[in-house]
């Protein structure tokens, strides 16, 4: 696959068209029906949760939130291949992958409601917390890859980043070092065409992000990120390749951020309705759904019923996060060090005295 789709040839890897028809039989994966439907349901769940979270934000029940809307296939396809022992090194816009790892909506909600405890993702094995400083996390993935190679483990690291993130030096250091060390890292670049308001063409003169893999001497591929079949195939191939000891793979997943950058952003300032409409035709759920319906594996009726169920589940976890125990002063100090310096203990103590004084004044 990585030879056939060498990014130097500027050929995007795609399996189904916008209407869900298979156009690349050679690479159509063999996935049993149950798994296929499950993947669709996972995308639907992520989308339902995402849209609902944006509306919670509008109601003032959660702070700034970065929507995944339109990018669901990439993280759900990752979840199909990623195993429990594999590592996930997130950015902050790949909900489907967190859920696949065992993270919960409640965890995610807690983070965006402003509580550090969400970022523990305690049920997710081998997953780092979300990382806000763009691209910085990619280098950690390379380090984890080193540990895997050093201890001769059969694990793969999935590291996420956006298109604009590839302008940061950290991206280049991470990919270069992973190549030099030949470690099993899959760099998953979600090219959603924008970094906040800045379009991809402002970021680089490169034809693609995938092509950068050529210069770093590693495998790379540009994939239609809204085609879950292509995404699954590319990730599966990358995982096999990395597990076989061939080193890292750079996947550029072409997609579109249908929502705002975050709930504080207004995309009408920098992009057109025409552009949004054109990308709408490539929507990952729409395409997979058309495929499933054509194979009689899915129906609108099932979908409507399921969405009702999903909405309840989202609400349930959201309310759980809302009712999470109140933040305590110990939560501010308690995790700074394993062995808290005396001076810090004193600061906490002084503050508690102030709180007593404040209470007494009332």
């Amino acid at each position, binding site marked *: 696959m990585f030879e056939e789709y060498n990014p130097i040839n500027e050929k995007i890897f795609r399996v189904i068209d916008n209407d869900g028809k298979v156009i690349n039989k050679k690479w159509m994966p063999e996935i049993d029906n149950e798994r296929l439907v499950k993947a669709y349901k996972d995308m639907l769940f992520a989308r339902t949760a995402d849209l609902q979270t944006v509306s919670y934000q509008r109601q003032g029940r959660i702070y700034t939130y970065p929507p995944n809307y339109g990018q669901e296939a990439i993280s759900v396809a990752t979840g199909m291949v990623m195993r429990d022992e594999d590592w996930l090194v997130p950015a902050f816009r790949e909900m489907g992958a967190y859920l696949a790892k065992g993270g919960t909506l409640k965890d995610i909600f807690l983070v965006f409601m402003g509580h550090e405890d969400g970022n523990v993702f305690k049920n997710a094995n081998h997953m780092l917390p979300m990382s806000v400083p763009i691209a910085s996390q990619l280098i950690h993935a390379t380090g984890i890859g080193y540990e895997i190679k050093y201890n001769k483990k059969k694990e793969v690291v999935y590291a996420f980043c956006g298109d604009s993130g590839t302008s940061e030096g950290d991206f280049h250091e991470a990919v270069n070092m992973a190549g030099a060390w030949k470690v099993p890292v899959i760099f998953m670049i979600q090219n959603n065409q924008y970094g906040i308001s800045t379009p991809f063409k402002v970021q680089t003169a490169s034809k693609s992000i995938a092509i950068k893999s050529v210069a770093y001497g590693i495998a790379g591929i540009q994939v239609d990120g809204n085609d879950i079949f292509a995404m699954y195939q590319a990730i599966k191939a990358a995982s096999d390749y990395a597990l076989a000891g061939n080193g890292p793979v750079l996947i550029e997943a072409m997609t579109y951020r249908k929502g705002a950058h975050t709930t504080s952003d207004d995309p009408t300032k920098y992009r057109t309705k025409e552009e949004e409409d054109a990308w709408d035709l490539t929507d990952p759920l729409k395409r997979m759904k058309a495929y499933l319906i054509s194979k009689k594996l899915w129906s609108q009726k099932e979908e409507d019923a399921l969405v009702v169920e999903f909405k309840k589940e989202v609400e349930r976890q959201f309310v759980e996060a809302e009712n999470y125990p109140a933040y305590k002063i110990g939560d501010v100090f308690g995790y700074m060090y394993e062995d808290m310096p005396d001076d810090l203990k004193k600061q906490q103590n002084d503050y508690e005295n*102030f709180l007593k004084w404040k209470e007494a004044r009332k």
Partner: protein
Amino acid sequence: MKVMNMVNAVNDALDIKLKEDRNIIVYGEDVGVEGGVFRVTEGLQAKYGADRVFDSPLAESGIVGTAIGMAAAGLRPVVEMQFSGFAYPALNQIISHVSRLHNRSRGRYKMAMVIRMPYGGGINALEHHSESMEAFYAHIPGLKVVIPSTPHDAKGLLISAIESNDPVIFMEPKRIYRAIKQEVAEEKFTVPIGKAKVLTQGTDVTIVTYGALVREVQKAMVMAKEAGISVELIDLRTIYPIDKETIAASVKKTGRIITVAEAPTSFGIGAEIAAIISEEAFLHLEAPPKRVGGFDTIVPLPRGEHFYLISPERIFYEIERTVKY
């Protein structure tokens, strides 16, 4: 005169300088088309063109590094770090070159540039959007560090910063970007770098603060007044070069000093001021200098941030303790 908030005032200062001097180049992440995530540069690209006001790639080291080259070649870049918490990839360029090239080239190359960055907490933000790193920059020899607390000062100080041939880190307290409005002169004026301002005369205790905390101290002063305590309030306005004279003169009068800053307290601006007072006004002190500041912790996410932020009550609590010492 025109009513402005700090966003308008910074925009106005940029506008005036862009009009006046074609060597001024304004860029950063989302600065051009969108006008910045806080809309500080809104309208400037339309007015001055995309070769003078533009979106850069997402690369802080790249932004500051190119500004160094531009400045060396005679331009006067004014760049934006989207949030101070994302300036760190640029620290190598700032510490290794911005602060040093003038000295390294024995004055041949001027680093006439301004690095603007919104900073500070109180906006219910995600991680890395709430820090106050002014002490860090002040500790780098070769940089000037400026923090306005009002729209008027923001305009006047930014114009001074842009006209300075030395590099200036211009930190904008984003919590009060839109919270304070005041009449600001429409024409060009400057506020000098390196001069603190006595905002209120008082006799019992001197409080030195800056940025968004000025307003919190003013609230605490209402409580102090009710308790019969007279506070002299100094707005530092420039962190470095620090105005020792104004601070020392005030403490010689009041005999007591409290510093208020949101940054982690240890090794901070308050510590520096306490040292200055020990050196310059030791025999006038009637109480130990008091630092009211952030904990030496990470700024908590929004649910816990109220513990970290400095409330007027906490300032008043320390005022009372210092005066009663």
